[in-house]
């Protein structure tokens, strides 16, 4: 999964041709780390149609807040330069994420 930061967010996420899944996580967020392997698995399955990215919020706090993300884990979908859907905390389960992905393949 591609690491996103303030420098490449615009190009890789907002200007992406493909829909983008952005995994907001943090170094101290245990639920995020527990979820990550499942997202990586989904990346193998849907990686040709959707671009999978992750963003460490501990290093990119301002960027996360600018995206109105203030809670972890948050898995967001971006399409045509805008955030179109997201799953946060309890809702961010592998099943729910796959369901969301299917709407963009």
């Amino acid at each position, binding site marked *: 999964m591609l690491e996103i930061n303030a420098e490449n967010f615009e190009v890789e996420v907002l200007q992406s041709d493909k829909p983008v899944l952005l995994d907001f996580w*943090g170094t*101290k*967020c*245990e*639920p*995020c*780390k*527990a*979820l990550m*392997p499942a997202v990586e698995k989904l990346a193998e399955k849907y990686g040709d149609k959707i671009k999978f990215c992750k963003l460490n*919020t*501990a290093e990119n*706090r301002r960027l*996360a*807040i600018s995206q*109105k*993300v*203030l*809670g*972890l*884990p*948050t898995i967001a979908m971006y399409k045509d330069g805008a955030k179109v859907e*997201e799953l*946060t*905390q*309890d809702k961010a389960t592998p099943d729910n994420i796959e369901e969301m992905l299917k709407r963009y393949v």
Partner: protein
Amino acid sequence: MQDIYDIIVIGGGPAGLSAGLYGARSRAKTLILEKGKWGGQAATTEELENYPGSIEQPTGPEITARMKRQAEEFGAETRAETVTKLELGGKIKKVITESAEYQAKTVIIATGAKPRLLGCPGELELRGKGVSYCATCDADFFTDLRVVVVGGGDSAIQEAIYLTKFAEKVTVIHRRDELRAAKSIQERAFANPKIDFIWDSVVIEIKGDGIVESVVVKNVKTNEVKEVQTDGVFMFVGYDPVSDLVKGLVDMDERGYIITDENMSTNVEGVFAAGDVRVKSLRQVVTAASDGAIAAVRAEHYISENF
């Protein structure tokens, strides 16, 4: 057909990991199943200062990761799977997950508890948008911002203190005029210049357009209502058991906590419960670990008498 496990533990928090450790160490064929994050609620707190031996900066994630490693080193299997169905009636129990079906002579239910929702307007809509139930997950976001903490127990006050490392100001909103938290925690909170208190008050609404902007607070004695500007709301208003899976299968109290005897036995033969999911007077990591140990040892007794 698959091998039959001696013990299947459902839940990978301190109770389940301790049960797994004790089971595997006595050479019982043991499997621990966890649906989400290993370590349970203990893995979401930095401050674990009341677990015996946990001095010199061990954190919840660290201690629970060690518990998991320890159980595995003794031979317990650990799998990240969600249990969807249980058949506990027969002598051999069936544990069905989304991807497999297991059989076991005994089952230890250690599914724990989860933070309770407050239930006010705005709470669900603004979850992850400033409303949080996990300080370690989300505290970073609130560096130099203002947050409120709702609750007055150990968790609430401990996490309020933790949040002062990040936030500019932490306001504790509590429905009574005194805290329930342990005295030592209270003293630290009262001495902390970043923490202030709104007493006798409840949050009746969380407001914000996309992200949290304020909470509406009502004084329960005077009925006075005021709006408090804030960037984050951390909820610690109690816990509910995670016991839907065994509803109707084992005896529970009216809140959904599983009823056991002092040996962790439920009303169903070969089925035990351990940790926060059980009816008990103190829900702590130390009592969860204790429950797990007892449950595993009693499970072995049960196996030697019945198989």
